[in-house]
């Protein structure tokens, strides 16, 4: 009899768990596999994982108050030694990335992060993920076992099929780490002012905006369009004109808006990767050679400072 594949998943973010289950089902290749999950929390967390195809739910009630989520590592490590998984699938949160790296290092094995697709060929598993700041994708084959991987939002949820299977729930105790950081204080950050991923329309100033005070004109345009204001990375991280959660592109926001209007955006791939899923892309730039025009539905080569007021007028009189 063929040995069943063992897949072990973990995320402290319960909203990511279905993504991980979807990925695990792809990893099983339609063959019988044993899917185990470690969950932090009470019965509601467990309920959310029932009938999802998970065979065993290891449940940890709660973490000690001055511990980080990451301190679950020792507990996870103990279960990893017991389960001996072929694949460890971790949610790509900040804590998840830390846990993935530590597991991979301790197992001296391959870590594959932010996986976009999973496929199999005659020689086994192949995964695809982004490199070069979104400028390229790479197809990779892990050469060591087990494979530790992280999966982010929006990649595999649709692959998660419902199941009649009722998971066995196994309580586990917290194994404290030998040395650790002591959590002295935690503060909720003020809610982010914007969720660009949900915005219907987005205007995005780039380096073509000369001065910070010119952003008031951008704001006016945004108001007349009913749009959120985004920006390119240099405006946020370099110049500090707009907060970090407003920049589009690699390590920033990915938008799915109906309309994106680039204002003096040159169109570096690090930025445009974030607008791939926008329905209509408008580019306004003085430089006819700007790469953004190759990825726009409508292009206007003109001075931004003439186009913006004209556009505001046109929208108002409409």
């Amino acid at each position: 009899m063929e040995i069943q594949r063992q897949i072990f998943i973990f995320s402290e973010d319960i909203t990511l768990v279905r993504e991980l289950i979807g990925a695990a089902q792809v990893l099983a290749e339609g063959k019988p596999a044993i899917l185990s999950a470690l969950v932090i929390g009470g019965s509601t967390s467990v309920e959310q994982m029932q009938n999802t195809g998970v065979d065993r739910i290891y449940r940890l009630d709660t973490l000690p108050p001055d511990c980080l989520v990451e301190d679950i590592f020792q507990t996870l490590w103990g279960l990893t030694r017991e389960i001996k998984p072929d694949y460890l699938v971790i949610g790509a949160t900040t804590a998840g990335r830390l846990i993935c790296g530590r597991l991979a290092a301790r197992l001296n094995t391959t870590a594959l992060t932010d996986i976009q697709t999973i496929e199999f060929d005659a020689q086994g598993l192949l995964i695809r993920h982004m490199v070069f700041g979104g400028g390229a994708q790479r197809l990779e084959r892990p050469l060591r076992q087990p494979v530790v991987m992280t999966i982010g939002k929006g990649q595999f949820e649709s692959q998660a099929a419902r199941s009649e299977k009722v998971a066995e729930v196994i309580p586990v105790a917290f194994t404290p780490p030998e040395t650790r950081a002591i959590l002295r204080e935690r503060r909720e950050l003020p809610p982010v002012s914007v969720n660009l991923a949900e915005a219907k329309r987005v205007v995005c100033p780039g380096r073509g905006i000369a001065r910070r005070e010119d952003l008031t004109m951008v704001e006016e345009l945004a108001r007349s369009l009913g749009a959120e204001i985004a920006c390119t990375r240099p405006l946020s991280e370099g110049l500090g004109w707009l907060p970090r959660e407003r920049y589009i592109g690699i390590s920033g926001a990915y938008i799915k808006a109906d309309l994106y209007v680039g204002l003096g955006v040159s169109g570096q791939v690090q930025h445009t990767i974030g607008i791939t899923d926008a329905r209509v892309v408008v580019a306004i730039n003085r430089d006819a050679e700007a790469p953004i025009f190759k990825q726009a539905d409508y292009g206007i080569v003109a001075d931004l400072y003439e186009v913006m007021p004209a556009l505001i007028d046109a929208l108002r009189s409409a």
Partner: protein
Amino acid sequence: MNIVVCLKITPDPEDLEIGPDGSVSTTHAEWKTGSFDLPALEAGVRLAEMHGGKVIALSAGTSQINQSKVRKDILSRGAEELVLVVDDSLKDASTAETALVLEKAIRKLTDVQLVLFGEGSADLYFQQTGVQVGERLGWVTLNAVQDVRLLENEALEVQRIVEHELQVLDVPLPAVLCVTSDICEPRLASMREILRASKKTVFEWSLSDIGIEGLTPSVEIVKVMAPPRASRKGEMLSGSVEEMVSALVNNLRKDGVL
């Protein structure tokens, strides 16, 4: 106390060339220190300036990382020494191999209490190498660090941003921290520092210098390709500004996005 700052020297992603067939080339790209790594170097230099000790910059890669412009750039930003582990088998090294090499190099250095990394490399941005090095060393390891202070009792106070939460932590030394780009603004080197850089020491180590007899790859790179692009209309509007704007508004209305 010595502070090691690990840097990745890579082809500049902005110089990436994409062929008509979707192939990707870095042949003509300039090699430089990753932009996410420079804030880590600055943070290390500021700690050393305030509390004493020196910053040792560490990088690993093929012989392409050993360029005088790159060396000078790193050393003019406040690192006192630069260690380059050079071996051509590090071409396309994945995080597991790089982490092993950096771990062995750090173990060869003396009196290291703190190792800093940036948030991710400029070329891969897998955000793994730093945390893997921390685990290999067996030190307390944290990512997403946006502030570090050295306390008097030889421990660190660290601020960390994790999704929508700010955490304040006491971190015992030795430690490995991966810092965000928000931690501080990298300095522009002064003329004096640029001149001083050429007198600083650069160590070039081979893999056998750090006790590694050959690296086994953890990943096979099967294919690198340009990402699929959404197909766009590519309609360039013409006429006066007013004409272009009115054509734009009409088109957007037709598309149903206004």
